[in-house]
């Protein structure tokens, strides 16, 4: 059966363009997201070069705004989200004993939309950067608040709208695929409460995606009709409401934050038990905590908007609900600590990244709790304190968990062990630089530096210099990962990986050979 398929699989570029294989599509997603991570990082380097010294040093203030906007969009929609979809593609069928994703053609389509979407977005940046006199790229922040993005948006806003629509379609199709696969294709005996936590977190994430991506699509469609078809959804002059935009955006935007972090929780919940050689503590409470976080994420959106002038009752409601989220999040952190407790710990690279995740994500979570306190948020809001907070949860949170996942499963994907030396260099270099990059942002933010500023007063100069050094260092550090990946995936150099790879690893993915063959579980395994 397996042979039959392999003999007819297309080769060369057609293998990738026409692929319906979950492993190939997973690899495409992962490489695409890594490419976007480097592109988005390059834009961040422009931002930090500009902010290294006070005074407009390198670019025009408007180009600076284009950089912050596209950096955010590319990192959120191009790097973090597709990375986790790639991981889901590769791992969910292997974890639940399914031969492939449930809807393989849709899987192909949902990936190949992405290069088109990002060509449009990045194209508008290239036109702006390399064509003097061309209209600017989107320059209204990744949150694209109206009316800055509608009445005052540049011509490229329409590219942006089309691009976001395509990203949304891709995400929704990916989410549908995950749900159908998990619901229908589990191996016999793989009950819901036996599924690895990564599958659970992705299942919940997929429901979040289906719930909120259409809201984002609605927001950009309303922008489009405001811009070109005479509607006034967000234009006060026509009876519309600019604040409505923010409500709609953040009704999407807050669950989106959890879309980017829940799969990370799943990854870490897979890695820590392996290297503690001890089962995950509180599996059931982890599942319930994940579900609670997902439900609460729908009733906290306006904590991004405390300064828009809400009624007192509204502010109190959103403050209390936001504070509540720290309870299930805390449960997760405590469960990871309890999993390690009295385990038999070793610290291979995946574990190092997972530990760095737990500690640095917790820092981001604690500053998030500070941000939930409405009166204090009046001071924190839109300052570098917020920038520090969300980079701690997204870079040293979501992206570190992706690194952990790559080092953890790379031997299974490629069949060879990663290069330990350059892996260690990548880890330590990233760990130190990421803190040099983001920790001082807490200070300048509290001291009063607003975010999205292309120039600043002199009391912020010292820390901004250090932040820029940290940024360049962190950026360069990612080239070590590129080398590790090239060596394992293309050169196939390195120690041959065993099927189990890790001594304490549990789960169906470790029962198939390394590298995982093109087709796995054609005959479903039986889970006891």
């Amino acid at each position, binding site marked *: 059966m397996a042979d039959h398929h392999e003999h007819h699989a297309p080769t060369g570029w057609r293998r990738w363009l026409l692929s319906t294989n979950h492993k190939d599509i997973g690899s495409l997603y992962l490489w695409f997201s890594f490419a976007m991570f480097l592109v988005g990082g390059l834009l961040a380097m422009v931002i930090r070069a500009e902010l290294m*010294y*006070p*005074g*407009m040093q*390198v*670019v*025009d*203030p*408007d180009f600076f705004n284009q950089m912050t906007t596209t950096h955010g969009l590319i990192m959120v929609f191009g790097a973090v989200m597709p990375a986790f979809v790639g991981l889901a593609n590769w791992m969910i069928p292997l974890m639940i004993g399914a031969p492939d994703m449930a809807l393989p053609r849709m899987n192909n389509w949902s990936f190949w939309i992405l290069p088109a979407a990002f060509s449009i977005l990045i194209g508008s940046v290239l036109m702006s950067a*390399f064509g*003097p006199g061309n209209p600017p790229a989107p320059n209204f*922040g990744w949150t694209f*608040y109206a009316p*800055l993005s509608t*009445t*005052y948006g540049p011509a490229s806003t329409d590219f942006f709208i089309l691009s976001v629509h395509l990203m949304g379609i891709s995400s929704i199709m990916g989410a549908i695929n995950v749900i159908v696969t998990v619901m229908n294709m589990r191996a016999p005996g793989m009950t819901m409460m036996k599924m690895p936590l990564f599958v659970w977190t992705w299942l919940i994430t997929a429901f979040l995606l289906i719930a909120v991506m259409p809201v984002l699509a609605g927001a950009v469609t309303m922008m489009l009709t405001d811009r070109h078809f005479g509607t006034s959804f967000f234009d006060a002059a026509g009876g519309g*409401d*600019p*604040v409505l935009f923010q409500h709609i955006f953040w009704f999407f935007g807050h669950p989106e934050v959890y879309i980017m972090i829940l799969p990370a929780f799943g990854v870490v919940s897979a890695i820590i038990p392996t290297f*503690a050689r*001890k*089962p*995950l*503590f509180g*599996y059931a*409470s982890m599942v319930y905590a994940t579900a609670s976080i997902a439900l609460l994420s729908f009733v906290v959106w306006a904590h991004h908007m405390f*300064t*828009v*002038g809400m009624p*007192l009752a509204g502010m*109190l409601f959103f*403050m209390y609900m936001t504070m509540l989220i*720290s*309870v299930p999040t805390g449960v997760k*952190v405590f469960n990871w*600590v*309890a999993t*390690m*407790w*009295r*385990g038999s710990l070793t*610290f291979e690279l995946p574990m190092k990244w997972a530990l760095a995740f737990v*500690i640095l994500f*917790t820092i981001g979570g*604690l500053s998030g709790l*500070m941000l939930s*306190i409405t*009166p204090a948020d*009046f*001071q924190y*809001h*839109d300052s570098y304190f917020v920038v520090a907070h969300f980079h701690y949860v997204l870079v040293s949170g979501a992206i570190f968990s992706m690194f952990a996942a790559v080092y953890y499963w790379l031997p299974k994907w490629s069949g060879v062990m990663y290069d330990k030396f350059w892996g260690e260099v990548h880890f330590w270099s990233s760990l130190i630089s990421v803190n040099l990059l983001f920790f001082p942002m807490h200070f300048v933010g*509290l*001291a009063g530096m607003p975010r*999205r*500023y292309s*120039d600043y*007063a*002199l*009391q912020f100069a010292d820390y901004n210099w250090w932040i820029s050094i940290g940024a360049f260092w962190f950026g360069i550090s990612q080239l070590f990962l590129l080398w590790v990946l090239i060596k394992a995936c293309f050169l196939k150099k390195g120690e041959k990986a065993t099927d189990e790879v890790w001594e304490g690893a549990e789960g169906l993915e470790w029962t198939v050979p390394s590298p995982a063959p093109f087709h796995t579980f054609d005959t479903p395994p039986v889970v006891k």
Partner: protein
Amino acid sequence: MQSTLFHRAAALLTTLMISGVAAADWTERSDLNMRPGVTAVSQDVYHLHMIILGIVTLIGVIVFALIMWSVFAHRKEKNPVPAKFHENVVLEVVWTVIPFFILIGMAIPATRVLINMEDTSDSALTVKVTGSQWRWHYEYLDYEGDNNINVGFFSDLATPPEVWQRPILSGGLFPVGTAQEQVGVEREPLTPENAFNYMIEVDKPLVLPAGQKIRFLITADDVIHSFWVPDFGFKKDAIPGFVNESWTEIPESAIGMTLRGQCAELCGRLHAFMPIEVVVKSQEDFAAWLAEEQEAAAEGPDMTPFASLDDAMEQGKPIYDRACAMCHGAQGQGGIGLSFQGTDYMTNPDRLQDNIDILLQGRGAMPAFRAQLSPKEIAAVITYQRNAFGNETGDLIQPDDVQK
């Protein structure tokens, strides 16, 4: 050594510390923590911030200590046989419930401060604050029962562009020129006088009385801005079509102080270039200042015609450099805005009225200048545009042509 602003600032700081000049002002500008601010509300917020910072730091230290303990004590060399436990209902309930009580402990003071901050009743002075790209507009609406004050003015960044603009790659990734080509002037060297309040100084500050409750009505002309003076302890968004309310009461101890703030919501290209400066006066001094401003406002705009084309050109150039060159280029070559060099719009006499109307009312991204420039200034700048940059139309526009 590179002669950047950073190094100059460092040298400047050292000089200031050694000489002791204004040392107190610098230490007040912490670069580490939130400003306690001058008002009771801002100090409440500061204390709330410090309490919560203490709590989360404590939680963090405990959790990280447990992790580190586990990392050292439960490593494989020391603990080769792992324990087998994977749940404990009592423990799980405890660490769900305890955080809940900590949260209640945080929510109570937070709620108290918030309720106080939202009470804008019984104010002595009402100031309307309007954000526009990229300056603030202050109007005094009501003071001690007098609601016919008629005082209002715009407040622009005072740090001149030639100080902050040093583009290497301005306008994208292609070098397009130096500060001279961009703004028409050579960069000024930075001195203690112009660098001390770099980016947080304005030409005409907001003046407020101490010891009285001040209500702000906050709105915007174009896009969303946010009014933030950290010393008042809040920021509030300025939204077109909405009027938001906030209040402050500055204590007598702050008389003579200058408080500084900035726009806190991305509002376009020059978002970082619209600071807020507040001068605090005693009630007597404030009343005197207000009377002076009222008198000046009552005189009305200067409508005397220009004596000659050269006269108008001479007055128009500095206005153009300040208000127009940022978008339309120092030589009228265009940029964010349209080019003025020999374009039909600038040279066709039939489009003169168009020219005046757009300047007054704005169009698309072009802001309206009706409220910001006097009729005489508008006449001067249009005369300048239509005769400079090789346009040579000979059009002389008088203040009366602009006034409708």
